[in-house]
């Protein structure tokens, strides 16, 4: 079973989020220096949606970002990066192809299920088949892993990696792997960043459906107001807890990607010579702080330790205000870009 040892000299940088982190690390390897917030922003990663009709473990999905994989796609399109992407019929084929690409001296990104990654802390291992990692070498039956949410690199046994790459469910990942085959070196990060920013501002301010964009926040606020009545105390708490997790748990960098987005605004403003972007960034940071307040109070309510003034209605008010502020913010932002 053991193939020959391989080591690709890969520089692992810890990131807040797996998709933007893998993207940033892979690009850096290929000579295109781009920070995680820039990768996130160029890929128009920020979004908001609350979809009552789409449930995971019986709880409606709330998301603070665009769909998995879209950051990669938009980033690649805007910077003319060419990615090779594979899916496989069998785990054996998936591992053979991984070995073949490593042999060429290339690090490989791939989708995994966190449930089957033994190196992660137990508490985070739910069935989620969308976790991006990079494999950059192998030693005997172990593969060397750069998991962007970790501070250092780690290892995984071949059998465990096969399982993590072929976890069933939503989505059926079937060994999905990807690696850049063409990365232009003389790119215009400013122009790509402006395109990414415009798209985010437009989608957040103007998506016509009620559950998407900044409007989606107000949409959820209305639901949240009736959670206790509609779902019962226990169900309401579970749904609230889920909101906190989507907003804050491993991967968002705080406040549902709002801080990472503010970091992107600052960096882009500096690169583009647009000092007013700093003001936008600080305004978004203040909005992010209010998201944090919301999560803090929601946490008190979940634990049953909330002061009397914290109720589902007061949280719904906070959310409604956040929706209004984000709507104004993204409209102003879109206007300043046109």
């Amino acid at each position, binding site marked *: 079973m053991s193939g020959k040892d391989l080591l690709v000299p890969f520089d692992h940088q*810890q*990131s*807040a989020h797996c998709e933007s982190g893998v993207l940033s690390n892979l690009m850096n390897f290929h000579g295109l220096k781009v920070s*995680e*917030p820039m990768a996130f922003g160029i890929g128009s990663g920020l979004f908001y949606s609350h979809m009552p009709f789409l449930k995971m473990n019986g709880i409606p999905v709330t998301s603070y970002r665009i769909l998995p994989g879209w950051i990669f796609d938009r980033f690649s399109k805007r910077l003319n990066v060419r990615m090779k992407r594979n899916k496989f019929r069998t785990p054996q084929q998936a591992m053979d192809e991984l070995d073949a690409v490593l042999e060429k001296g290339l690090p490989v990104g791939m989708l995994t299920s966190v*449930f089957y990654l033994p*190196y*992660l*802390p*137990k*508490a*985070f291992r*739910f*069935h989620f088949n969308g976790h991006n990692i990079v494999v950059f070498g192998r030693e005997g039956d172990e593969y060397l892993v750069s998991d962007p*949410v*970790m*501070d*250092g690199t780690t290892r995984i046994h071949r059998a465990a990696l096969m399982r993590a790459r072929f976890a*069933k*469910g939503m989505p*059926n990942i079937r060994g999905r792997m990807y690696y850049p085959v063409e990365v232009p070196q003389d790119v215009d990060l400013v122009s790509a960043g402006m395109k990414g920013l415009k798209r985010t501002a437009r989608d957040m301010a103007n998506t016509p459906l009620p559950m998407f964009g900044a409007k989606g926040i107000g949409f959820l606020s209305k639901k949240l107001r009736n959670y206790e009545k509609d779902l019962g105390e226990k169900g309401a*708490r*579970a749904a*609230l*807890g*889920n909101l*906190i*997790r989507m907003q*804050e*748990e*491993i991967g968002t*960098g*705080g*406040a549902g990607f709002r*801080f*990472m987005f*503010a*970091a992107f605004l*600052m*960096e882009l403003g500096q690169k583009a010579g647009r000092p007013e972007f700093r003001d936008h960034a600080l305004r978004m*940071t203040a909005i*992010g*702080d209010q998201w*944090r307040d919301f*999560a*803090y109070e*929601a*946490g*008190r309510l*979940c*634990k049953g330790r909330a002061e009397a003034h914290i109720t589902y209605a007061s949280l719904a008010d906070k959310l409604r205000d956040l929706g209004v502020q984000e709507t104004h913010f993204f409209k102003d932002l879109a206007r300043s870009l046109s």
Partner: protein
Amino acid sequence: MKKEEVPQDDANLLEGKFKVVKYALNDKGEFEKVPSVGWEPENVALEQAWDVVNEKVESTRRAVLAGELSPLAYHMEKNMMDPGLLGKHVGSSARRVRKHLSPKGFAELDKDQLVRYAEALLITVDELKTVPQ
């Protein structure tokens, strides 16, 4: 969020394995990645999610001991699966899996089927046939 405001509420959920990073403003007014061991609301929400899972596992375990369900039901819950997801792992339909969740349906499983279930649930066939007392 300022750098010094990045919470460090350790509930040992990361098992000391690593710290996660948050984006926060440093004293120069720029964002930087700041390590964090956790934050109270996140810890609460995550523990609550596990409580739901653990309650389900425990009630299933009792139902198995009471002879109402087969051990397969317990191990399925332990792996946080439903009949649909488990079915995909063993190449079977949710309906067939559901049948095997009853003691009677489980008793009819042959060796091959038991092995397939055990592999999908990361246990041995002997473990698959029992639940903790």
